């Protein structure tokens, strides 16, 4: 499995990280080194193995479905790069 420049560009896009065109070949090279290392996993026969989902089998705790928190608008917005009129402000999303 070899990653080409287009695939590297597609992955960067999916991850929402801007990568300049000039940097794509080096990035593809690094992906290939890491994926080459990961490739060893294909040696094992895992057909009858259940994927591990939790470290220790534990039933998730339940609690009544009720509101336990809230009314903290100012604190929620305190770290926002741009907060206005009680909202997070972002560039226009819908034309």
């Amino acid at each position, binding site marked *: 499995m070899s*990653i080409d420049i287009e*695939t590297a560009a597609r*992955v*960067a*896009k*999916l*991850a*929402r*990280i*801007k*990568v300049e065109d000039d940097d794509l070949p080096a*990035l593809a090279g*690094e*992906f290939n*080194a*890491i*994926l080459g*290392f*990961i*490739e*060893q*996993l*294909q*040696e*094992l026969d*895992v057909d009858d*193995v*259940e*994927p*591990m*989902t*939790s*470290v*220790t089998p*534990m039933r*998730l*705790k339940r*609690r009544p479905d009720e509101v336990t928190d809230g009314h*903290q608008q100012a*604190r*929620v917005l*305190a*770290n*926002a*790069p*741009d907060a206005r009129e009680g909202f*997070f402000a*972002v*560039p*226009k*999303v819908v034309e």
Partner: protein
Amino acid sequence: MMSDLNTLTIAEARDALRKGETTSADLTEACLAAIDRADALGAVAHKTPEIALERAKAADDRLKAREEAPAMCGIPLGIKDLFCTEGVPSQAASRILEGFRPEYESTVSAKLKAAGAVMLGKLNMDEFAMGSSNETSVYGNAVNPWKVGDAPLTPGGSSGGSASAVAADLCLAATGTDTGGSIRQPAAFTGTVGLKPTYGRCSRWGIVAFASSLDQAGPMTKTVRDAAIMGAAMMGHDAKDSTSADMPVPDFEAMLTGDIRGKVIGIPKEYRMDGMPEAIETLWSQGAEMLKDAGAEIRDISLPHTKYALPAYYVIAPAEASSNLARYDGVRFGHRAQLAQGDGITEMYEKTRAEGFGDEVKRRVMVGTYVLSAGFYDAYYNRARKVRALIKRDFEEVFAAGVDSILTPATPSAAFELGRDVSDPVEMYLNDVFTVTVNLAGLPGISVPVGLDAKGLPLGLQLIGRPWEEGDLLNTAYALESAAGFVAKPSKWW
């Protein structure tokens, strides 16, 4: 006043506080002075002297009031920058969290605070805990107080600032976190003790998430006894973390008898790596000999899937990281890029993340994105989760056969030079070869300083225990520590 208060262990300070031989304020001032003289170590990223002195005073009042104060009351600590601390910068050593001051306190640091512990400052680390040398931090490198010749050495990573601060006596102990070895490897590189508890022992709430199924907080200390004291103070059930275990936390310190007669210690043959330095090999045999002399039975064991642990880790950890780090989008907290005319929300995300994340973080987020993308999920992610089940089964079989703990090297080398060329990212990943299996299986592991290499640098051994049996593990570590008699300290150059 006692001299060199910053060099005390937690146990020594606790006892001195109760005898009235010192005060938390004196301990704290000694540590703050040591921190101010140690900028060359780069260990402390954000100093919080006002908070420290205020909490020290409160601790002294509490100790004077003769109420039964917890063991950690008045003990000055460093807190890894990965822990959210209310009103204090908490940026996981990343540019993307510049200026972030949480409105809340992580459960672990809140428990320490409630016990009366004193926060001295926030400690350096690899960005988002991704690294093994503390070279990916936005704050610059943390440096190992141990030195040979002129070249500065790494304190390891990702809890490099914590390890450096504890080894240099800038604090009595520090918090760390461990996703693939980030407590145990830096502890080994600095001649200190690092405990990674069983997954679920410490709440992950309020700790900046890297790989949620692997992350676990733990203490980084000068002695095994201190790891027992501080570890117990950090653990316990928390309704805010659904994976936190609702189990009682025993008094680990009371379990430190040093008596390990009849215990079975496994030596896994797969951990004997090609090209392992002779010093590590020798140390490992010596460690086994010490435990044998203390009355333990040494047994050769096999953990056949060991070689697949690192490749499985480098699927699972990046996959979980890509998902966890999706929250850094420039909307709710941290850095937002300056936008050009006509830029929309996608450009805002892409520019913000390109500016805010360092190279290693970007690399892992993108690898994680790739292995989770349509068409590859089964081939990579699901396969890695199956391999993880096999690695866990290896341990379960060995424990079922009567093995109590497993002894391995902690790291494949002593501390290496900062700034060495790592053009192949995989080469850096090999640092975690002995520690990463423990995270995948969710087990407790501890690194104990046991000796020095030919150049005079500290080396550690790792003990791995049964799930939830930190008490037994700490007792075996205590026996190893007592037998090794490691007392060396770095000579002060900073």
